[in-house]
Each structure stands twice: as structure tokens, then as C-alpha cells.
């Protein structure tokens, strides 16, 4: 009667279900089974094992005593072997703290009832019959065994076992249900804890049966009319049987469709004006969506992205409103998602709102037109800063009225009547620079700064002698930055320090502060700065000769920064210097113009000039020490790597060695 077809198969099924449910309490049963595979094809119970007699059977091979049969602890009472009731006593060999003792008892009582009925039958049938009904292999079976009582016994056994199985099945069912419920409760708890986390970061309120949140910047002082409401959705409708995805979150948020995707403000400066047909067709560059920070939930990223879209929209709306309202010489153009302004002639500043929703169309268009990276990230960042400043201003400018019945408003404005303010004072209260004006000023400054840098760099690379050095300050104001320009000659940096310029680059103009305190204001035109630097470089050479003369012991006879003689320079003026050798025999005259370049002439003593006609007036030999006419030096054929070095060589050649 072992095997799946036995009367205990239903019981077995119940046990199996319990076991699969993972309940710890069932685990004890496996020990009763003596290691038989519980989920195997042939479930076996101790009562179906060969050598066991269930019911009225006589036990031949009692199992070894191994302590508690349910939980395996050794504290249990040892079984009374050789007893007639061994099978039942064996079943009782459980310790008091066994978790499934109760179930076991129920099962046991069912089996006991089956057993109690069996001796009655046995008594009825007599000892012979009793011997015949035994199923132990040692017993002889006779053909004369009456089949009827055996069938009855079988039926009653089956019934008892079915009752026991019923109880087990019911218990298993309850366990299954509670496990499922647990999982559902866990999801619910997760939703609530997620909601709690959401509430720590975002404003939420309950409207009807919905939970609505606010992602707008209104509480921070924004006046943008977009409501910026999102809805919190419970995302618990997942199949518990299937594997739960890793990024599963029981809480989800639904943001308004116009805030989906990603957006940013693009600011760029173009040199030439585009075709009118190109206006308003700025496409989104492919920009990867910001990756969520590790550990931050899915909804946080989603809401932050939506809030960013909202802020970008607000910035753009504010800029477009100002662009239409502000009257400038060249009117600002607002087309679609682009604002175009002309800060300087032939230069245009374009501010555009790029918004990509997640649909395929926009992604396609973004890949089509890949423009070069001409973003002005600083300005884009500054726009965000400015709008936040604007928000703060709206918050802080709100003053509580005193006395309390007075209307809201600026206190100074309310004082304007009683204190009889004039128009200028009232204007000063009201005037406030808009976002667009500020950003245009910043753009102008940035452009002027980069152009100045480019001018200095190109001059430095084009002209090797003298050298030009620019020292930019690291920390700048948004509207002003400064650069120190040094013009030096290579190898003579210590003696030639005459030209040091401080360039203060503003919004519209560049102020140049000379070392001697002169201030020159240059306009935004590139040429002006270039001409100025060229003339300074030309002056530097003459200054360098002056410094060199001092070092070499030569005498400066004349010096002029702006020579009134000779050919007229197109840029600035030529400068000139004349120095005489320590002995006074020789003189060097240098004329240096920004355009004409340098011209060096040497004056020799008269006695060295052979071709000089004899003068009748200067008869005495002492007049021979006078310097004669000038002769030009072929400067480009002189040795030396730069002008000052050549001059040093020339001077040393002309001054006789005194030793």
C-alpha cells in the first residue's frame, strides 16, 4: 500500500503543500519521513513503509530511536520499543517545543480513531482473523481471509486519512493566503514609505481621492502662471507571481505632458546675421538625459527634470516678454523659440529654448542638425542664477504693511506721497533692470573679453619682437574683467619694463590704464585696441634703447615719444631717441614707427669720415672730434636675435674699450 495510490496520498499532498509554502513548522515532518524526498514522485509515509503496520498491524521492525521525530532534538522521551502500541508512541516522540505539535496531535487523534476501530473488529473476528489481517511480510496469508472486514477497514482508514489530509490542506491554504497577503501588505507599506520620502522633498496635498504635488517655483517667489501640478500614482498593480523588476517602485508620478522630456536654454553669439528663413528653427542638440543619482528614486529624477523644464520655460517667457517691452535701438526679435538681439553691429546674440519631449520626432530632428558647440555655458548658467535672483527679489520685496490695514507694497512707495518725492526719486524706486538687459550686458562683456584676448594673442603670435604678455585675472565680475599687458624684449625683461598696461574690459568699452597713470578709453572696436597696442610696441623699442643707454653708460641726447618729423604714420606716431657714446665720439639715432618700422643711424666723428670735404672754417684739429654726418645702419643685416640685442652690440662696438 505504499505509493501514490495509497489512502494517504491526499494527506501527503497536504504535507507537500505545507512544505512548499516554506513554513518552518512543516519541516519536522521530513524527519518522520526519514529523508524520503517529499516532492518526489512517490511520496511515502512511515505507515506505508515496509515493516510498518498501520492500524491493527503488528510491528516487526521498530525504527531506531533518534530523539524528537519532529524537530530532531534529543530531549524527547525514548520510544517504548516492543510495545504493541509502538507506532503511536513513536508518533508521540516529540518534544514540547516542536512547532507543529498541534497539527501532529490532530493527525494523531485521527489515526487513533482509526486504530481504536481496528481492535474492535479484531475482537469480533477473533485471533485467527487478527493474524490474517496483518500485512507484515512474515505473516502467512490465507485464501480464506474474509474480504469484507478488510475492505471495511480500508475504507475507514481511508476516511480517517482523508480527514487528516483535509485539515492539513486547510492549513496549507491559510498559509498560502497569509503569505500572499504579507506580500501585498509589504507593497502597501512600501508605497506609504515612498510617499513619506516624497513628502520630504515635494509639496503634496490631497484633493478628493487624488494626491497632487506642486513642482512649481511659486513658493520660491516665481510669478510664472503655469500650475506645475503633478499627480502621485499608486503603482501596485503588478503580478506578484512574476519577477519584480529591479527598478520597480510602488509609487509613480504623473507630470503634465508639457513638462515632459528635457529642456535647456541655449545662448550663443554668432558673428553674422543668419537668413531670415533660419529664424526660430533651433533644434535640440542631443543631450543625454541626466542620469539619476545612485540611491535616489525614480520619481525624484522625473520630478527634477520636469521642474527644470518648467524653469527653462519661465526664463524664456520672461525674456520674451522683456524683449517685446524693451525699446532698444535695434529691436529684439522673438520668433518661435528664439530671441535674437544685436549687442554689437554685425553680431547677434541668440537665446533659444530647446525642449525635447521623448517622442521620436524630436529625436530625429535633433540628430539631423548637429551644429557646432557654440554654447555660452556661462550665460546659460547665469540666466538660471538671474531668474532665481528675480524669484528671491519678489519674495523679499514683499513687505508686510504697517499699520496692518495698509495695502501691500513697497514702503518707500508709500512714503512717496507724505514725503513729497519728486519724479526722479520715484523713478529710482521703480527702475529695475530686466533679465534680458542683464544678460545682454553680460554677453557684451563676454564677447568683448574674448575678442580682446584674441587680439592680444594674434599680435603676440604675429610679432616676435617685442614680446607681448597678457596676465588675465582669474576672478572677474560679470560685467568687468581686467588683464595686465606687458611688452618686453626677450632677454632684457629686467631693464625694459616701461610699458605695463592694465586693460579694464567693461561692457561697451575698454579702459586702458597706463603705468604712468594715463587713462585711455577704447571703444568695442577691435581695430582700436590693435592700433593702440602696435603703437605701444613701437614706443617700447625706443624706451628700451633709452634704458639700455643708461646701463651702457651712453648719454641720452634727445628723446621724443611723438616725433613731428618724417613720414606720417597711419597708426599713432613714430618715436625717436638719440644717444651719444660715453666718449661722445659716436651718436646713435633711432626712429621707430608702428608702421614704418625702425631706422637706426650712427653719427661718426669727423676725422673718421674720409669723404667729408675739408671745411675752411674748421681749421683747427680739435674740431675733428665733432661728430660728422649720419649714416644709416642696415639693421636687418645686423647680428642679434632682437632689436635690443642688436642695439647692445652696436653700442658696444662703438664704445672703445677703456682698458
Amino acid at each position, binding site marked *: 500500500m505504499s505509493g501514490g495510490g495509497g489512502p494517504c496520498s491526499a494527506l501527503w499532498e497536504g504535507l507537500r503543500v505545507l512544505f512548499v509554502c516554506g513554513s518552518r513548522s512543516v519541516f519536522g515532518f521530513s524527519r518522520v519521513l526519514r529523508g524520503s524526498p517529499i516532492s518526489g514522485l512517490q511520496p511515502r509515509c512511515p505507515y506505508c513503509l515496509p515493516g510498518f503496520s498501520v492500524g491493527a498491524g503488528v510491528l516487526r521492525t521498530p525504527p531506531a530511536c533518534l530523539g524528537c521525530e519532529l524537530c530532531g532534538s534529543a530531549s524527547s522521551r525514548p520510544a517504548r520499543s516492543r510495545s504493541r502500541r509502538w507506532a503511536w508512541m513513536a508518533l508521540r516522540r516529540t518534544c514540547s517545543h516542536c512547532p507543529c505539535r498541534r497539527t501532529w496531535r490532530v493527525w494523531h487523534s485521527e489515526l487513533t480513531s482509526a486504530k481504536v476501530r481496528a481492535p474492535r473488529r479484531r475482537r469480533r473476528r477473533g485471533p485467527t482473523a487478527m493474524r490474517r489481517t496483518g500485512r507484515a511480510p512474515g505473516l502467512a496469508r490465507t485464501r480464506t481471509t474474509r474480504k469484507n472486514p478488510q475492505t471495511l477497514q480500508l475504507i475507514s482508514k481511508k476516511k480517517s486519512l482523508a480527514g487528516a489530509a483535509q485539515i492539513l490542506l486547510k492549513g496549507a491554504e491559510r498559509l498560502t493566503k497569509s503569505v500572499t497577503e504579507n506580500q501585498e501588505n509589504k507593497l502597501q507599506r512600501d508605497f506609504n514609505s515612498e510617499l513619506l520620502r516624497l513628502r520630504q522633498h515635494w509639496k503634496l496635498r490631497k484633493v478628493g481621492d487624488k494626491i497632487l504635488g506642486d513642482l512649481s517655483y511659486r513658493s520660491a517667489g516665481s510669478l510664472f502662471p503655469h500650475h506645475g501640478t503633478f499627480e502621485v500614482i499608486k503603482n501596485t498593480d503588478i503580478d506578484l507571481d512574476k519577477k519584480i523588476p529591479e527598478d520597480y517602485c510602488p509609487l509613480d508620478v504623473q507630470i503634465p505632458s508639457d513638462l515632459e522630456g528635457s529642456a535647456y536654454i541655449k545662448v550663443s553669439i554668432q558673428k553674422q546675421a543668419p537668413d531670415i528663413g533660419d529664424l526660430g528653427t533651433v533644434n535640440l542638440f542631443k543631450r543625454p538625459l541626466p542620469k539619476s543619482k545612485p540611491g535616489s528614486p525614480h520619481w525624484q529624477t522625473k520630478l527634477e527634470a520636469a521642474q527644470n523644464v518648467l524653469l527653462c520655460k519661465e526664463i524664456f517667457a520672461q525674456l520674451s516678454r522683456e524683449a517685446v517691452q524693451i525699446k532698444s535701438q535695434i529691436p529684439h526679435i522673438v520668433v518661435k523659440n528664439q530671441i535674437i538681439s544685436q549687442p554689437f553691429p554685425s553680431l547677434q546674440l541668440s537665446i533659444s529654448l530647446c525642449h525635447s519631449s521623448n517622442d521620436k520626432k524630436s529625436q530625429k530632428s535633433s540628430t539631423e542638425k548637429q551644429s557646432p558647440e557654440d554654447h555660452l555655458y556661462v550665460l546659460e548658467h547665469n540666466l538660471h542664477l538671474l531668474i532665481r535672483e528675480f524669484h528671491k527679489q519678489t519674495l523679499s520685496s514683499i513687505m*508686510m*504693511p*504697517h*499699520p496692518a*490695514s495698509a*495695502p501691500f507694497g513697497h514702503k518707500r512707495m508709500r512714503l512717496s*506721497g507724505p514725503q513729497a518725492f519728486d519724479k526722479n526719486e520715484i523713478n529710482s524706486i521703480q527702475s529695475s533692470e530686466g533679465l534680458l538687459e542683464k544678460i545682454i550686458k553680460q554677453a557684451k562683456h563676454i564677447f568683448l573679453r574674448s575678442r580682446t584676448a584674441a587680439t592680444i594673442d594674434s599680435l603676440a603670435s604675429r610679432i616676435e619682437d617685442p614680446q607681448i604678455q597678457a596676465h588675465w585675472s582669474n576672478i572677474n565680475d560679470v560685467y568687468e574683467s581686467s588683464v595686465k599687458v606687458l611688452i618686453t624684449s626677450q632677454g632684457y625683461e629686467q631693464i625694459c619694463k616701461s610699458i605695463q598696461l592694465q586693460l579694464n574690459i567693461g561692457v561697451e568699452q575698454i579702459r586702458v590704464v597706463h603705468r604712468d597713470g594715463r587713462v585711455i578709453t577704447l571703444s568695442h572696436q577691435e581695430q582700436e585696441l590693435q592700433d593702440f597696442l602696435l603703437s605701444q610696441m613701437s614706443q617700447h623699442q625706443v624706451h628700451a634703447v633709452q634704458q639700455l643707454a643708461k646701463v651702457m653708460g651712453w648719454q641720452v641726447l634727445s628723446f621724443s615719444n611723438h616725433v613731428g618729423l618724417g613720414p606720417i604714420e597711419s597708426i599713432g606716431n613714430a618715436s625717436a631717441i638719440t644717444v651719444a657714446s660715453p666718449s661722445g665720439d659716436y651718436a646713435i639715432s633711432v626712429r621707430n614707427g608702428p608702421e614704418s618700422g625702425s631706422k637706426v643711424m650712427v653719427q661718426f666723428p669727423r676725422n673718421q669720415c674720409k669723404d667729408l670735404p675739408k671745411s675752411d672754417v674748421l681749421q683747427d684739429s680739435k674740431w675733428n672730434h665733432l661728430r660728422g654726418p649720419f649714416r644709416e645702419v642696415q639693421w636687418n643685416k645686423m647680428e642679434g636675435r632682437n632689436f635690443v640685442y642688436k642695439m647692445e652690440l652696436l653700442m658696444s662696438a662703438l664704445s672703445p674699450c677703456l682698458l
Partner: protein
Amino acid sequence: MEAPPVTMMPVTGGTINMMEYLLQGSVLDHSLESLIHRLRGLCDNMEPETFLDHEMVFLLKGQQASPFVLRARRSMDRTGAPWHLRYLGQPEMGDKNRHALVRNCVDIATSENLTDFLMEMGFRMDHEFVAKGHLFRKGIMKIVVYKIFRILVPGNTDSTEALSLSYLVELSVVAPAGQDMVSDDMRNFAEQLKPLVHLEKIDPKRLM
């Protein structure tokens, strides 16, 4: 000598034609803390401010039956703030669609010699009181929670006596005429204050 002619019609047109939308209620002293706490949560994110004002009500009696009333108010705890002169028109209850009491209102900031000026004009002081309380704001809505003190000696604001054991709560919006939409916002806000305080439109005529 005849009283100077005073027009009984409120000034209309321009930005002067403003209306005050008003809801009123009161709380007992012991519930003040919880109301203030609630208001701090609901209102704009600002530090709550207190105020201490002295209000004088002036009447000008002409030939007409009803006198012309002006309210002059000054702040006692803030120096340098201008005086506030206010004209309030007849309150209109309106129908059920309008959720707030509406009255015409003219606000003006004045210098401190306002009382002398009004006296010169022929106004007579009717009554005066001291209002002390808290001030909140939410958008354009102003919420004042204050207690009214009776002045024992006329003109001396130092000796005062509380009028009642409760605080008056007023929710008001000053908006151009015809913007009844604001009353909806006010109603929504008043709903959120329930059950701490029930703000209703109270017809002053019924109380008289």
C-alpha cells in the same frame, strides 16, 4: 458756518476704484496658538510679523443722514511708517455666488499731522482703539489675527483693556472692482482653516 461740501460718492475710475473683499471670524484666546501654527503652514514662506496699531475713527456729519466715516491708523511699534487713512464704503453682501463681503475702499498713506488736518476739515473723532496681533500673507490675500483693546483714557494708548476674550480673524483682498474671482480663492483658503476658525461674510447691518 456751513460744513464743507463733501461728496458721498466714492471716487471712481483709474486705479482708485478698488474693492475690499472680506471674510471675518473669531477664535478664543486659547486656540490662538493652533491657528497661528496653521496659518504659518498655509501662508507664504515668511517670518510671521506682529503689529500694534492705533486706529481712530473720524466722522463728518453733513446734511445727509449717514455720516461720512474715515479711519486713521498708525503703527505704534514701527517708527517711520506713514499713517494710513482709509475710506470704506457700504458693505455689499452679494448673492451666494460671491463668497466674500465686498466694500469700496480707498487707501492713502499720509503724514503724521493727519488728525489735525481732519479736525480742521470738520471731522470729529468718534472712537479709537488699539489693535494688536499677527499679520500673514498668501499671495494677494492678507490675513490679520488681532485683539481689540479699549483705550481707557482718551488719547493715552498706554492704558488699555482687552475688549473680549477672543481674537478677530480677517481675511481680506484689495482688488480692482469686478474681480469676483478672488472671492473663490478666499473661500478655498477659508475652507482650509476650518474647523479652527469659521470665516464667513458677516453683515455688519445685522449686528447693529
